[in-house]
């Protein structure tokens, strides 16, 4: 059976192209992709995960407000009983060009399992997700 994952673009962000590509690539890689699209709230992500029994949530943020939009997502997951949820985040997460290692630390501290800069090839994220979900490829 395919592992289910939820993908979407958080906050007031309407960047739709990367979201389409992510959908395509993770579907091709054998995942059941639930795509809640752009302009999605933390609640949208969690509801979709509960409804579909998803094992991972992949949050995209391209517009710089990721810092504000992503806070508390881990806590909300735990409140909703999703304590095992794998949380990824990727994109241009803060306003402007900042040192990625700092940004990564910041989002890891928020409870994300992995943090991706925009230049990471999607195959790497696919491989990571296979590993983190204990899937054999």
């Amino acid at each position, binding site marked *: 059976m395919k592992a289910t994952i939820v993908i979407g673009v958080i906050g*007031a962000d309407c960047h*739709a*192209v990367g979201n389409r590509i992510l959908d395509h690539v993770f579907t091709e890689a054998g995942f059941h992709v639930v795509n809640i699209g752009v*302009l999605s709230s933390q609640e949208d992500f969690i509801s979709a995960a509960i409804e579909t029994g998803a094992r991972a949530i992949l949050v995209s943020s391209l*517009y710089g*407000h990721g810092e*504000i939009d992503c806070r508390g997502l881990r806590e909300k997951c735990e409140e909703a009983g999703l304590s095992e949820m794998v949380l990824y985040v990727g994109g241009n997460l803060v306003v402007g*060009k900042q040192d990625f290692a700092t940004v990564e630390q910041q989002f890891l501290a928020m409870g994300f399992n992995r943090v991706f800069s*925009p230049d990471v090839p999607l195959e790497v994220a696919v491989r990571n997700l296979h590993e983190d979900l204990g899937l054999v490829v």
Partner: protein
Amino acid sequence: MELKNVKWSADQFLAVRDGVLKQWETGHNLALERAVEYQRSVPLAKRFADALLGAKEAGITLAQPRAGVATVEGQIELLLHLQQVGGADLLPVTIDSYTRQNRYRECIVGIEESKATGRSMLNGFPAVNHGVEGCRALFEAVGLPLQARHGTPDARLLSEIVLASGWTSNEGGGISYNIPYAKSVSLERSLLDWQYCDRLVGLYEEMGVRINREPFGPLTGTLVPPSMSNAVMILEGLLAAEQGVKSLTLGYGQGGHLLQDVAAIRVLEQQAEEYFRDGGYEVEVTTVFHQWMGGFPQDEAQAFGVVCLGAQAAALAGATKVIVKTPHEAAGVPTKEANAEGILATQQTLRMLRGQRMAPSPALEAEMELIRAETKCLLDKVHELGEGDYAIGAVRAFQAGVLDVPFAPSQHNAGKMLPARDNSGAIRYLEFGNLPFTQEIKDHNRALLEERARFEGRPVSFQMVIDDIYAVSKGTLVGRPEKVISTSRR
């Protein structure tokens, strides 16, 4: 109110206005007469419409950056840097994404944290939160015309505030600020709300103040075929003109194929003027060329290559204005220094190419003719679907997939059309969805893509589209399979 492409009466407008001004506290007590009075005091050097008309007459291309941060003080510092160091000709205020979704309450958090941390936590300037007071302070601190640039489906309150603050241009439109910027806002709603914004400009006009309006040409900025964006530009231009707008700057986002880019801008200006004339509208038409809106290379030197190619295309096309990207583009919002660098590189290119235009040629004529014919197919069908009303026709055209923007987030967009590059890099239609093209046009597009498929030794497919989307950030225009690239590099 029912959507129709008919000029709103003053009474209709004022009836709606009361509700608009109550949406946020900074809208209360905003008197139109006092706003117009303030606009009358704006000097010629800070008037958008005059600057654009002057540039068009002189045959030169003006450079304008994008720029927005959370606080008034930060925005003043930023714009003065772009004016004084960068040498911008026109100034923008890019509005943050919460404001674009009318989430003014979330802006408060962003503004406060920005003040606390000393760096902008918002990706733009929350003009509604700052109100007329903050927006006027900003306007008075700078020395060039000021424009609001955003992506707001319902920009009525925002427009009221910025026009009352001396800003002399407003970007957007009922299609171009909905389909690429919203998920579920209906087109009827956004078209009505932008009729309001345009009627507001019409009222200023009636009181002797010319405000420039600029429909957003690039749409999703991702492989949009020129005829699709040109059709949307002409449509939004017609709707704006009906509400009394007299200064219109129609936009186009760089595709990367130089000849197609030049053809697109030239035919856009020509064809729009024909439609406006036929519609009985007297409008000052100028054009704006957006430097590459897709993914950028991370490397800053390569990014300069992309920026300068956009500057070159704008100059050779003879666009009235170019919107400038920066070497930080891949990382999102640029620092003020990087932003100035983008302008400086662009201005060097524009000034070295001043007076140089792409020469008329059979190839250029053919590309213009193709774009013109495709655009006419689209607009004819919109007219037919709307039974003569372009506003109603626009709604029905998107429902029917007759207008269809690639990679748009809106659920009101069919999303059945797919674009890809031909072998020379020009953007063509791969899947037509329900586009009302003649068989000849379809065959022509298809043949050009088949030519590329043969060159690459693979079928025309969605993989081509994906490859094209990432190509520029990887250093090429056409997304070739790796083996084709390594062979041609030998």
